[in-house]
Structures are given as C-alpha cells and as structure tokens.
C-alpha cells in the first residue's frame, strides 16, 4: 500500500469540540468520525459534519458492523453506511475485527472472536460482501480483549494478516489495544506488531486506558500512557510514516490537551523517522 497519501495526525471528532473546531480551525490534519453518530435524519451532528468536512479530511470509523457476528450482515446498516460514505467522501472506512451483535441481541461491545480457520472463512466472506457494497477496501482494527477463546490456533495479528491477504482488507493498528490485551493476556506486544503485514497498515490509533493493577480496561478517558507511547515509537520504526489518530471518548479535557498529545505523537514520529521520512 502506498503511503504517499499519509494523512498525518488526527483526532476523533466529538460533539464536545464541534464549535471550537469550526471557530478556531485547530492544526489537526484530519478527523475521524464514529459513523453511527451520523446515521440520523438531521440536526446538530449532520450540520457540523457537513461544515467540518469542508475544512478537514475525514475518515469513517464504525462500531456496529459486527463483521464476525453469527447473524446476517445488516442490510439496512450497510445501506446507511454507504449513504454516509457517499456524503462524507472519507479517505477510508474502518470498523473492528470483532462481533458486536449476537443472533438475538445487539450487544454493543467489541467482542473477541476465536482465531480459528472457521472464523477466518466466516469473516473473510463477510469482508468481501461489505467491500463489494462499499466499493473500497474495509479497514479493520484489533480490539482490546479481556478473554481469549481456547479454540484459537493463531494470534489476533496472525488472523488479521491472513484476513488481509485473503480479502485485500487493510488494518488499523490500535497500539493501546495491543498494550491492553498484552497486559491482560500476557503476550508480547512487540511480537504482535511484528506479525502484522506492514504494507497493509492504513492507520494507527492511540488512546488512554484505566489501570486496575493486575489488568487494564480500554476506557479512552485518560491521557495516553507512557508504555503506549513507547510502543508507538517502536511501531513507527517498523511501519514507517503512518496516519495516526488519538481517540478520546470520555472525561473530555480542554481541546488544547488533545492538541498537546497530538504534538507529542508528531515529535515521536519525527524522531523515529528522522528528517528523511516526512510525515505529512
């Protein structure tokens, strides 16, 4: 995958900051939207979406595709996702490698899959279907996990690598999720990253988590932790320049604090990649 269209350093678009973004035009290279928040009839969200998309490149990031779910892919959801993509003209469309809906309920969580051949074939056929409808590669993100399935015969990163080679889908590497899962499950986060095909990594996520001592929860309500910054630097060293986005979903700080975290990401990237590999 060519990185010539590297987007730079972005932030998650959240309603708390709409007004400020339009008034102050902060130095953010791009914004990422939560797709479902804009699958509505009208009102504030769509108003600000239309205004902000005139000023910044956007990326769509969904939470409800349930690409690994046991149900049929929700045709109404896909239609709305496609309509939104037509409206937003995002640089890419992402969701998570997980399932979020069962056969009877929406579970509204990013649940882990068993990493088996059976899951791989199941997910791959659904990725192809979604890509056919969206007419673009789907970008899938590794999730934070609190359990694993005993039947798994490969790691999540090996699964993503296989899935990508089967379907042409791309990968969103959430460095915080790698760190959270590695602490919870006792694996080597660096090995996880090394197992990913670097040419297929479209984007990186950074976020904060909550530390409960012997385990971590992916809460997106804290500043990014030191070990996650360190892992980010190592990841960039392996990947080269990669579009990077900071997610914040609760305990919203003044916007300047997020800009300061974004500056930190820029400087880590500059330091790791040196002057020879400009990021933007």
């Amino acid at each position: 995958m060519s990185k010539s269209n590297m987007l730079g350093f972005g932030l998650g678009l959240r309603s708390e900051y709409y007004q400020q973004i339009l008034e102050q035009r902060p130095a953010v290279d791009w914004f990422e939207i939560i797709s479902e928040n804009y699958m509505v009839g009208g009102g504030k969200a769509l108003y600000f979406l239309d205004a902000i998309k005139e000023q910044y490149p956007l990326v769509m990031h969904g939470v409800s595709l349930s690409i690994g779910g046991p149900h049929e892919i929700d045709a109404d959801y896909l239609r709305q996702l496609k309509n939104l993509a037509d409206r937003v003209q995002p640089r890419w469309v992402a969701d998570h490698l997980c399932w979020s809906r069962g056969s009877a309920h929406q579970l509204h969580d990013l649940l882990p899959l068993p990493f088996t051949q059976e899951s791989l074939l199941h997910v791959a056929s659904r990725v192809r279907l979604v890509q056919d409808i969206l007419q673009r590669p789907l970008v899938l993100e590794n999730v934070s996990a609190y359990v694993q399935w005993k039947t798994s015969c490969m790691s999540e990163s090996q699964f993503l690598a296989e899935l990508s080679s089967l379907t042409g889908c791309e990968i969103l590497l959430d460095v915080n999720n790698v760190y959270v899962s590695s602490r919870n499950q006792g694996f080597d986060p660096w090995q996880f990253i090394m197992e990913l095909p670097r040419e297929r990594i479209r984007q990186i996520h950074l976020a904060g988590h909550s530390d409960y001592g012997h385990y971590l929860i992916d809460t997106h309500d804290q500043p990014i932790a030191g070990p996650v910054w360190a892992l980010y630097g190592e990841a960039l060293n392996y990947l080269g320049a990669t579009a990077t986005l900071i997610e914040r979903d609760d305990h919203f700080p003044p916007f300047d604090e997020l800009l300061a975290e974004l500056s930190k990401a820029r400087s880590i990237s500059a330091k790791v990649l040196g002057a020879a590999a400009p990021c933007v």
Partner: protein
Amino acid sequence: MRLSAQQEALERYLATGDSAIPPGLLEQIQGSNTLPATDGLMIYHNAYRARLLGVMREDFPALHRWMGDESFEQLALAYISAWPPRHFSLRWLGEKLPEFIRGYVAEPQRSPMLELATLEWTFTLAFDAPDAVPLSLDVMGGFSADDWVSLRACLIPSVCWLQLQHNTVDMWKSAKAEIGIPDAVVLSAPMNCLVWRHKLVCQYRTLEPSEASALRLLTDGGSFASMCEYLLSTHGEQSPLQAAIWLKSWISDGLLVRTCRIGTSDTIFLN
C-alpha cells in the same frame, strides 16, 4: 464447539441478568495469570449493563431524577431484559420505554411516569429528526393579499405534539432545573405541548386550547382564511388579528413549512 455455538453461549451470558457463568461457556474461555477467565467474562457482563444503563440515564434524566437512582435502575434493567437492544445504534435503546411502563407500572404512578418518559423521548426524537427549512418572517413579510388568503402550512418534521393529562411539563422543568420536583397531579383540562427542533436546538412550548385548535386547523390543511373564519365565533372582529399574531409566533418559532396543495394529494414544499 463451533463458532456460532460459542457466540450464542457468550451472547446468552451477557444478555441475561444472571452473572453466574455457565460451565459450558467457561470451559471455552482461556484466562491468564493476571486476568482469570471468570474475571474477564465479568468485565464484559458488567460493561453490557453499565453501558445500557448509562444510555437510559442520559435519555431519561427527569424520570431518573424523579424516581431516584435505585427505582430508576430497577425499571431500566427490567426494561432492558424485556426490550433488549435491537438497533445497531444505542440512540434507539429507550424507544419502547413508555410502552413498557404502560404494562409494568401500576397506577397511580403509571400515567405520570408514562407521560414524563414520553415527553423525554420526544426530545430525543426532535434532536435528530430530518431537517426542514421552516417558513420565515422574511418570506411572510413579502406576502401579497392572495398569498395570505391561500396560505397553507404544515408542521416541520421534528414536531411532536403531545396532549398531557398531568403537570408533566412542570415536573420536567423542575428536574431540568435540578430543583424539587412537584408531586404529579391531574390537570383540569389536557395540556397541548409541542416539542421540536429549531436552529439545531430542541424547543418546547405549551398551547392554550384555542391556539391549539387554530394550529391544528391550519396544519390539517386549512387555509389562513379558514382559520380566521373559525376564530370568528370566539374572537369576533379581532379574529384576523388574532390569527395573524399566532401565525407570526408559530413562524418565529420555526414550526411551519409552507405547503401548496395541487389537485388533491400532491404537496410541494415551496421554501
């Protein structure tokens, strides 16, 4: 165990209120030294309820305040198990709460709770209802005499029109102002209340019975002239003036879209 059976086992565990982990599920799950399987599963189990309860509290803040934490949580959990989330967006989670209250709560609490939940849900609906360009005072300023006579209008799509039997609006206002909520009482006559969105912000207003009848007549397809005629019996000579005053206030509230009837069924939006 096949993928679909594994998923069904986890789904059943998450969606039932029971936190005891079925052995059939537990034997599928690999924990770690730092996070045993039971603790990991509990994290998902708790997160499911916490997330849904959080949405219910956000969508029904006045009902929550009126009932108190414990009773509201009990109601919300009973609701969630009766109406588990079916839509991909949590925005729709509370849609059936009024309906649920109707069957779950006994009088005398049932009716005022039902009204308060309905009122709060209409704000949720108005918030992201489809956009429309309402008739403006500017446009109205340029009306010819013919325009006045033939004016027809309907309500913008975000309007919800409620008829409340209780002092629900006062209860809601007090809850919003975070002051003591008055006891629920039945009103001597039903109160008409409109909830809608104007310039991105949700609005509400109550209507006196005569104003409500006039607005109903106009938005049911009557012309401005027929509204004046209708008001003759109550307002005499003042009826065109009264009709114009009300029309102006509905328009400044952004409630109306101008429509023009062609033939019998086609409606065209002019602005």
